[in-house]
């Protein structure tokens, strides 16, 4: 085990993938010589050669299409989209092409593409450097959707995503690259000393489709992913209630058993995400949970989410779900 921040652990996963599988190639805007605007691919071109780690022309649609083609023809491409907000020029290639290739060809063809992209707010990025577009992909059959939250699962989940033969959209909470984020912009801890900053060297994989029970409790199930896992942890602490915190990790296909077992135990549920509420992934979960847990529920399921508005710049702390809002919601589930 080595202590790493999330940038280092993602870099370690990529380094290991390049080392163990000669078909892995990595590309995207500024990922080659420079090592990426967030430094995730730092040093990889120098170590593995520029035919394996290279800069792409500034065209996300092209990047996704090239990944489709390379993956179809035997390579295992790992493409970076510099910000999740800039994945939309690639949307057609991802949704209509990458996601449907296996099915439309009767299983004759497939493409094991991994698309990594930093998402979420908290860096004063305004409308176009802050969005959380995961539900735009969870709504697309054929894609697996993964969201890491700490250095340890970042490496483990990225390794599994690259090794997965289905296409994976892999979200990285950029606000947590250098430290967990507890919802207080004035208190900026690093990953130093955090249990989840211990990351194995070499090959390290965590199975997809499995949620992680971060904190056990019996009074309420709180589900979150990405940066919201840490904010929810703070929210639970603030609430003083013995809630169970679950980091979903893989959104599609999600770990229904773990969630259902937890909600049947607690009888209460709060779902937290940064993305807007309407048609957010919380809506899908909430519907599925009530289908399975209706007779166990003691209170309505509550969603704490970003607002149904564009992501703001100066007022971003009024947009991102806060520990206070989460604590409030947890308390509300206890009233019923």
């Amino acid at each position, binding site marked *: 085990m080595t202590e790493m921040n999330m940038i280092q652990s993602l870099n370690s996963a990529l380094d290991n993938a390049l080392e163990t599988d*000669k078909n892995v190639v990595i590309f995207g*805007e*500024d990922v*080659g*010589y*420079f090592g990426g*605007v967030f430094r995730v691919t730092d040093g990889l*071109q120098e170590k*593995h*050669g*520029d*035919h*394996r780690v*290279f*800069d*792409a*022309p*500034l*065209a996300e*649609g*092209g990047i996704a299409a090239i990944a489709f083609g390379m993956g179809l023809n035997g390579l295992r491409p790992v493409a970076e989209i510099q910000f999740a*907000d*800039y994945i*939309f*020029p690639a949307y057609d290639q991802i949704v209509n092409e990458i996601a449907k290739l296996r099915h439309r060809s009767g299983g004759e063809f497939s493409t094991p593409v991994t698309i990594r992209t930093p998402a979420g707010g908290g860096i*004063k*990025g*305004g*409308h*176009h*450097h802050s969005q959380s577009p995961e539900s735009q992909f969870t709504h697309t059959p054929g894609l697996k959707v993964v969201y890491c939250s700490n250095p340890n699962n970042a490496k483990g989940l990225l390794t599994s995503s690259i090794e997965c033969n289905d296409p994976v959209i892999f979200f990285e909470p950029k606000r947590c690259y250098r430290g967990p984020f507890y919802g207080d912009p004035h208190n900026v801890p690093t990953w130093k000393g955090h249990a989840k900053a211990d990351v194995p060297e070499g090959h390290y994989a965590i199975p997809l489709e499995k949620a992680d029970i971060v904190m056990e409790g019996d009074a309420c199930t709180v589900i979150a992913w990405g940066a919201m896992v840490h904010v929810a942890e703070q929210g639970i602490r603030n609430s003083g209630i013995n809630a169970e915190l679950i980091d979903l990790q893989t959104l599609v296909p999600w770990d229904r058993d773990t969630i259902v077992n937890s909600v049947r135990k607690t009888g209460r549920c709060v779902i937290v995400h940064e993305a807007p*509420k*309407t048609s957010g992934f919380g809506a899908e979960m909430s519907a599925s949970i009530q289908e399975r847990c209706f007779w166990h529920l003691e209170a309505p399921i509550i969603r704490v989410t970003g*607002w*149904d*508005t*564009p992501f*703001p*710049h*100066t*007022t971003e702390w*009024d*947009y991102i779900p806060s520990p206070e809002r989460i604590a409030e919601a947890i308390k509300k589930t206890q009233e019923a």
Partner: protein
Amino acid sequence: MSGNKEGALDTYTVPTAPFRPGDEADFGGSWKEQPGDLNRPDPIDCNSNDTYDHAHGLIRVLGDDNSASGDWNPDLDAEELIKGLELMMRLRIFDDRMIKMQRTGKLSFYMRSFGEEAIAIAQTMALDDTDWIFPSYRQPGAQFVRGRDMVSMICHCIGNTEDNIRGRQMPVHYSWKEGYFISISSPVGTQFSQAVGVAMASAYKGEDQATITWLGDGTSAQGDFHYGLNFASVFKPPVILNVVNNQWAISTHRNLATGGSNFAARGLAYDIPSLRVDGNDFLALYSVTKWARERARAGKGATYIEVYTYRAGAHSSSDDPSRYRPGDEFKCWPGGDPVDRLKNHLISIGAWSEEKNAELTEKIDSEVMAAYKEACKFGDLASGPYPPASTIFTEVYETVPWHVQEQREELGK
């Protein structure tokens, strides 16, 4: 190709930059193209074939000896030139002040036009005042030409209560309706094809109103670049399409945006008259834009221009170019410094002096400083006050729908 590892074929090419940190940059000394090399075709009668040489050469007016010459000399009087110089100096001083404020946390982020000041200033000066401007983030200078109040610009950048876009977008994403200056959007290149639609609407309405837009060399790889050129080629609206080739897209050299070395000639394939111009030559930029505007006025359709320049500074306040390029190589860029070049020309024709220049610098500096102090009275990013949180919920739709209203009440601010 370089760095090829065993197994990869030689036909698999991965380009890199011609120089990296530690290397000596070499741009070949001075331009071989000279003012006067290229004629100025009749803008009305010209077709794309007539601009073959202009797309492959380099249109210049200001020579290495600071004189202005050739067919493309716009023959501007000294007063106009001094105005152009003043605006470029203002833009540079403004940018420098904003970067200093950024370092103290008064704004979150900033992007300078350093080394590219002539582009927005000269090209906007060559337009009519009501022509539409569809900028990328490196043409805020157009607002100076149309007289936007600096206090209002700074209020936007520092996201205070007087920010006309209510703190919603990052700094430098100006929006200014009175100046026909369209709100800047971060996703690169989107403005380029939108501008063609605006120009088509002007033509539809029969109005003599042109539209100008710019995108970068890197961004020319986006689909929007090609959509824009193609729609402009098909519908021939009054639009001026510019690609600013400043050699870099963050750390990515322009040889990853094209396998060739020329952006202007791409326009010929779309059958659009295409020019390549020295982007650090105020007079040449003014002149080619006037030419394109004449074509627009005459209903002759689009003009496409490669503005050949160098990004002298960092990509943005978040960028550290010393990680991927030598650092001071812009000093040997053959196009020199656009501000110095116009200044030296004015001095050489006896219309300006170093003393006057120093005086003007001081005057602008104190105006920028005064504007900054005035703007800070309404708050800044470091200490607020900000636009109220209720502005998150307004103007998402024309009227606030019930679900957004409910969320606003839930926030309770």
